[in-house]
């Protein structure tokens, strides 16, 4: 029996040592421009989160496809799930696409948007970045197509309007309320994320009259702990009668809106003074409209050439 087990182990090792060749099939090139659009989101273990991001494609597809220069629009996840960016770019290459417009559905600048996505598609080639992606099991694929990456969601004023509207829905007496913005955060771009939170606070103040704000991070930067959010909520409740907790998150993920933020609120032991709806930026018609407009803008620029 032991010889059988040994044989199985050795056999497995031999199989794993045979790597699959990843071949870039030559696409049929007859000089015709073929433009594709790829909506890219982060990816999540939450099925609800993934469904919300793919719903963006469903909402914008028919409008974007009215642009005769666009042959197809698809979605991809940066990590955790398939279809990955590499999978989609390989599809585009195999189908002969000459140009791909990537629309990252990311809040603001981060290591993901600035380094990971460009590295995954071959626009940046730092070996250390490639190794980091490999360690996270994110495939890197240098596409044959020309790639353009559109700006991020904070490029527009839509984010501020979205947050202000959601705060208004919960607000009853702005003079007695403070607001806590809870976002994922980013260690390398902490300054930019803090600036974004301050900017959003200013917009919310103008729109709602609430004048007491705090913000906290809920992501990797704080090791997904609840304490920073609990602390931010308490700092507002020290000054105001009630607090509105606002997730500045693209979609709903049970781990974030449910566990991290929800548990953070529980730990204040002041739930009666806190208003919280575990919602997200999506769905947002204005945001979908922006995706359509920015995509058309980039596609039309490419089509002119």
């Amino acid at each position, binding site marked *: 029996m032991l010889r059988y087990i040994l044989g199985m182990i050795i056999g497995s*090792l031999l199989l794993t040592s045979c790597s699959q060749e990843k071949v870039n099939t030559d696409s049929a090139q007859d000089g015709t421009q073929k433009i594709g659009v790829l909506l890219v989101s982060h990816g999540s273990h939450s099925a609800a989160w993934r469904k919300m991001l793919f719903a963006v494609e469903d909402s914008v597809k028919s409008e974007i496809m009215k642009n005769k220069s666009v042959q197809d629009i698809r979605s991809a996840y940066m990590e955790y799930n398939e279809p990955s960016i590499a999978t989609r770019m390989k599809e585009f290459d195999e189908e002969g696409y000459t140009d791909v417009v990537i629309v990252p559905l990311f809040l603001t600048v981060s290591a993901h948007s600035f380094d990971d996505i460009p590295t995954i598609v071959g626009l940046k080639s730092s070996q*250390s970045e490639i190794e980091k992606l490999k360690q996270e099991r994110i495939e890197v694929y240098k596409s044959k197509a020309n790639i353009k990456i559109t700006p991020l969601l904070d490029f527009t004023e839509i984010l501020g309007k979205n947050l202000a509207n959601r705060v208004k829905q919960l607000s009853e007496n702005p003079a007695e309320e403070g607001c806590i913005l809870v976002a994922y955060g980013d260690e390398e771009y902490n300054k930019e994320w803090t600036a974004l939170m301050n900017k959003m606070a200013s917009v919310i103040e103008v729109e709602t009259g609430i004048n007491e704000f705090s913000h906290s991070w809920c992501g990797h930067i704080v090791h997904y702990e609840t304490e920073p959010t609990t602390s931010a909520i308490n700092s507002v409740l020290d000054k105001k009668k009630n607090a509105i907790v606002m997730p500045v998150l693209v979609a709903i993920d049970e781990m974030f809106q449910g566990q991290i933020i929800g548990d953070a609120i529980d730990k204040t032991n002041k739930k009666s003074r806190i208003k919280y709806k575990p919602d997200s930026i999506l769905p947002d018609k204005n945001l979908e409209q922006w995706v359509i407009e920015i995509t058309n803008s980039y596609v039309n620029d490419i089509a002119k050439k």
Partner: protein
Amino acid sequence: MEIKNGKYYKLNKSLHRDIGYLFVFMTLIYSISGIAINHAKDWNPDFYVRKENVEIKLPKNVNEINENLILNELDRIGENFSYLMYDSPNSDKVKIYFKDGAIMCDLETGKAELERVTKRHLLFEMNWLHRNPGGVWTIVSDIFAVSLIFLSISGMFIMKGRNSLKRRGKWWVGAGFVATIFFMFIIMI
């Protein structure tokens, strides 16, 4: 059915011994990488990340920056960089990429931070296996896990006499069980 104590005892002992030998290396890999990954909050188990402040003099206006300026600054610092490219995430910052790291320059403050990233060779590969790279390794690691289950159960029946499971052994097994349940209880509340 009459239990043939001697035969099954010897079989158990042989299997425990040989399966134990077979998986010594894998047990070490999973244990060492387990310790490394267990402390991921305190260190990066996969990469050496060296950060230091450096002096890179660039114009405050990002539009005035070009590759020649950057290359001159890298020469001036005197470090051996395999320069790749530069890019700007916004009007305040410039990131200079080289083969094994990058320098992030804050144009507003004039500060620049160099980050060099190199793999922790061997540990990186062990962590990679521990986290399951997928494919056939899923089957291999499942076989290993089943073998560990066997080793833990079979190990209880190896010793005889004073150190057997019926006598001294039951206290150690009981203590391990109680401690584990206690921690599980603590986590749940």
